[in-house]
């Protein structure tokens, strides 16, 4: 393999970084140039990621390493787990870019917006491809910093407060993570991700290991929005819809969840995690978050707030799968990393279409939306049913494997948890669907007729919904998220 080919993770990261820098340099007035750069970069990244996916499937070794300071390496690699997050973000970046160009057609500061948007994707790719904790941290912090201008994009006092809360949570989490990583570096002499973990070999005392685990877990749990560290997420919904869609449904929370997966699989290893009793901590935090998020979602009157709390709840399925620790539960959790991303981005796109076309933000305003925007609301319905866990949409597979996995390890409390969660999901999603399709259109807008969102908003929505449906239908095909999760788990469990 040539050096250029094996350094593929670097090119994947750079493709959006170059776009970010170009967009910021080109500046505000050149909208077409900016859009062209953005779309070309997104397509290039998708192609590169596809090549890399194929390569990883073939067992090719992708590495890039540069020494930043003695003993600390900037290390990118691509293993099966990397691909799970990078394929998801590459596909959704392209879809969201097209959506965002349409959504922000008349907005201010678009150069800043798209520049930092590309930077966020760079950071997400870096989180996915990081080969050690040090590199992971660099991109993890970059993600916090580059998301901030997007959260405060509107420049309203509300956006400013949300941005401040977001930074406060993520930077404090980052500081805890950094301290934990320095301890790992000192104990183990390096922080490179190793299948099966490397902390067991350090021979450190149990107390110290527990402390380190908790530091790293707290640092990643902030972005994964585990209760009580979730506070920033619902507030950050003040950002424009594409930001909520890609970043708060996919990139940022997934970076946190992905960090937890790496922490358990590749830093401590499943055995040591279980020995320290930390798997119970992870599972318990996830279980509490699943229930709490759903119950909060029930209380919300704002559509995006419902979706935000639903994210809080659903992302924890990933941590739950890791916490249970059985192979089947791990498959369910990892597959959910992709499944939740596809379904949630669909829902946020729909929410964006509603507000952009009809100014609908409250649940009560959704009456009859299905008759005015049939395509959008069909996509919404598919994704919402998937979130509840109705087959054959992707969400069903995640829940099925999680339940089986719980039983496999004798943790039968998982089943009632899933049942309660499903009931709660249905309790906040079904009324929305009912309103959209069966409630009458409010009197003053009755004669409006069908008015769909513009094509640049509608098509990305439909593509995302199709992907969510497809990955459920075709869960048994090679390279489907579920099969890929199985591929990862086979490696983890040898």
């Amino acid at each position, binding site marked *: 393999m040539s050096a250029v080919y094996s350094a593929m993770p670097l090119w994947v990261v750079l493709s959006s970084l170059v776009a970010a820098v170009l967009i910021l340099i080109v500046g505000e007035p050149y909208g077409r140039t900016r859009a062209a750069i953005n779309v070309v970069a997104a397509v290039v990244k998708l192609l590169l990621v596809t090549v890399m996916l194929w390569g990883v499937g073939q067992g090719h070794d992708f590495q890039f390493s540069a020494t930043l300071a003695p003993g*600390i390496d900037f290390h990118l690699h691509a293993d099966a787990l990397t691909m799970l997050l990078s394929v998801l973000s590459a596909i959704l970046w392209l879809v969201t870019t097209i959506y965002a160009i349409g959504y922000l057609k008349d907005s*201010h500061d678009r150069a800043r917006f798209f520049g930092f948007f590309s930077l966020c994707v760079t950071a997400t790719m870096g989180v996915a491809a990081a080969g050690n904790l040090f590199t992971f941290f660099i991109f993890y912090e970059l993600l916090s910093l580059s998301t901030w201008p997007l959260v405060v994009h509107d420049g309203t006092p509300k956006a400013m407060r949300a941005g401040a809360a977001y930074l406060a949570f993520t930077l404090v989490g980052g*500081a805890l993570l950094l301290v934990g990583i320095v301890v790992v570096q000192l104990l183990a002499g390096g922080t490179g991700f190793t299948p099966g973990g490397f902390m067991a070999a350090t021979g450190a005392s149990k107390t110290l290991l527990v402390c380190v685990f908790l530091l790293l877990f707290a640092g990643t749990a902030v972005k994964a929005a585990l209760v009580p560290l979730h506070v920033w997420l619902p507030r950050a919904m003040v950002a424009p819809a594409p930001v909520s869609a890609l970043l708060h449904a996919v990139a940022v929370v997934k970076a946190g969840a992905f960090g937890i997966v790496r922490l358990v699989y590749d830093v401590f290893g499943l055995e040591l995690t279980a020995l320290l009793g930390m798997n119970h901590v992870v599972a318990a935090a996830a279980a509490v978050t699943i229930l709490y998020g759903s119950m909060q979602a029930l209380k919300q009157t704002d559509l995006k707030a419902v979706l935000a709390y639903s994210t809080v709840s659903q992302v924890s399925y990933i941590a739950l799968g890791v916490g249970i620790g059985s192979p089947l539960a791990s498959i369910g959790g990892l597959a959910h990393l992709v499944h939740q991303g596809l379904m949630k981005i669909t829902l946020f796109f729909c929410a964006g279409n509603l507000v952009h076309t009809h100014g609908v933000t409250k649940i009560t305003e959704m009456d009859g939306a299905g008759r005015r925007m049939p395509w959008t609301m069909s996509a919404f319905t598919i994704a919402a049913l998937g979130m509840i866990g109705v087959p054959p949409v992707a969400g069903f597979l995640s829940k099925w494997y999680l339940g089986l996995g719980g039983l496999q390890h004798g943790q039968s409390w998982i089943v009632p948890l899933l049942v309660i969660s499903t009931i709660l999901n249905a309790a906040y999603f079904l009324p929305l669907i009912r309103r959209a399709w069966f409630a009458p259109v409010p009197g003053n807008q009755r004669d409006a007729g069908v008015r769909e969102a513009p094509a640049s908003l509608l098509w990305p929505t439909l593509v995302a919904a199709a992907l969510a449906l497809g990955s459920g239908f075709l869960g048994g095909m090679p390279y489907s998220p579920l099969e890929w999760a199985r591929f990862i788990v086979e490696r983890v469990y040898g």
Partner: protein
Amino acid sequence: MTEAIDGLTAGSLTALILGPLILALVAVALPRRRLIDSAVMLLALLLLALLLPLSRAVLTHGPLVMDLGGHDAPIAIPLYVDSLALGMLWLLTLLALAIHPYASAWLQRSDHPHADDYPALWLVLWTGLNSLVLSGDLFNLYVMLEVTTLGAVSLVMLGQSAGAVSAAARYLFFALVGSVLFLLGTALVYADIGLLYMPMIAVHADASPAIVVALLAITAGVAMKAALFPLHAWLPIAHASAPTPASAVLSAAVATAGVYLLLRLWLGPFAGTWTITTAQGIGVIGAAGILYGSAQALRQQRIKVIVAYSTVAQLGYLLLLVPLAQSPLAWQGAVYHAVTHGLAKAGIFLAAGNLILAIGNDRLENLSGADQFAAKNLLVIGIAGAAVAGLPPTGGFIAKWWLLSAALGQGQWWWVAVIAVGSLLAAAYVFRILQYAMRQPENRAEIDPRVRDQSLPYALLWPPALLAALALGLGFSGELLAPFLQVTDLSPALGGTGR
């Protein structure tokens, strides 16, 4: 310990001191601004070129000592270069390269009545700083401290605001008291040991009371000049009311040089006198400075005052070197922090100066919508601010990583907490500035074009961008620069700070 000094090295050391001095004299005798400006740029580039072989020489031979004037030790005045001094020299030269063209354009733009005085004063200050860094003789240090002080105070007086003169007077008062204390300490050392030649002074723990008093006097004297907490009272006012380019030099170079001098003395001639308690005590003072400076920075309403308080805070990190000095990583971290902070801080001041030119003052509440007309300057503040806060991927992050590793490696976890909290507070005051700038103005149509980025002369835009880029680039150069920062021999005596 020392090798024979070759001609190039001797020439470089001489040029570092005499170059700015001669130019200063020329600037006084021949006040032709354009000529002087080009000469200063040429000199900065020349010195930068000379620093390369000098760094190589230090890397291969270890610390260099050059006795001036052909005299022998201990009568001669030694010039002394090690990794710590090299770090300072690089910082000073890069600052000169970036700040001088900015200063020249800034003075022209703001129609400064005393614009012609600026270059000579700055060159005197530069001479003083370079000599301060290189000098290995206690009395010579005193003289250079005075030169530096006079240059710095005069620069503050060039400020046009009403408070500039009183701020300068306050600065002068602190600095003069500091000078007297330093001179007292020097005299006591000479009386007790009979030496001023620092490479040969090694005070031990059983030192006479006179030496202890000398140490205290010198420490207090330099601390007053360097504005170390709790003797910082003059700094925020002086740095905020000085002309922008001078603020940058004062915060990035002059304050740092003061702490450099303290570390040089504490961990050089006086290294033998430390006990665990006193070392931890200095660390506590540093920590208090970090927390106090950051807390104050969070409360201020003017950018330049925020940045000045940030300097009070960031100097505190350098004091953490004393309790952590057993670890080579702490040395690397401290030098890296000093250099990154210097570059980043200067960048922030210059960018803030551009904002002031654009909106007329530096009050936070007037910043609304600044990202419309000063996006590049805000980006500089963001990147340089991230470096100050130690966020990746900047040089500040590498420095923090090393400091954290040193603290955790020695089990002194309490400094870890201080470093982490200090970084978070720094991030908070940097983002507070950006937050005001990102607010949408009440009515977008009302934004007058004012002075847009594009309409500021190029010479005002590239220096802050260069400084921020350097602070960012240091985040990727840890491996390249680490050999220059290696400290293997931590034994007392001045040479102990080298390999």
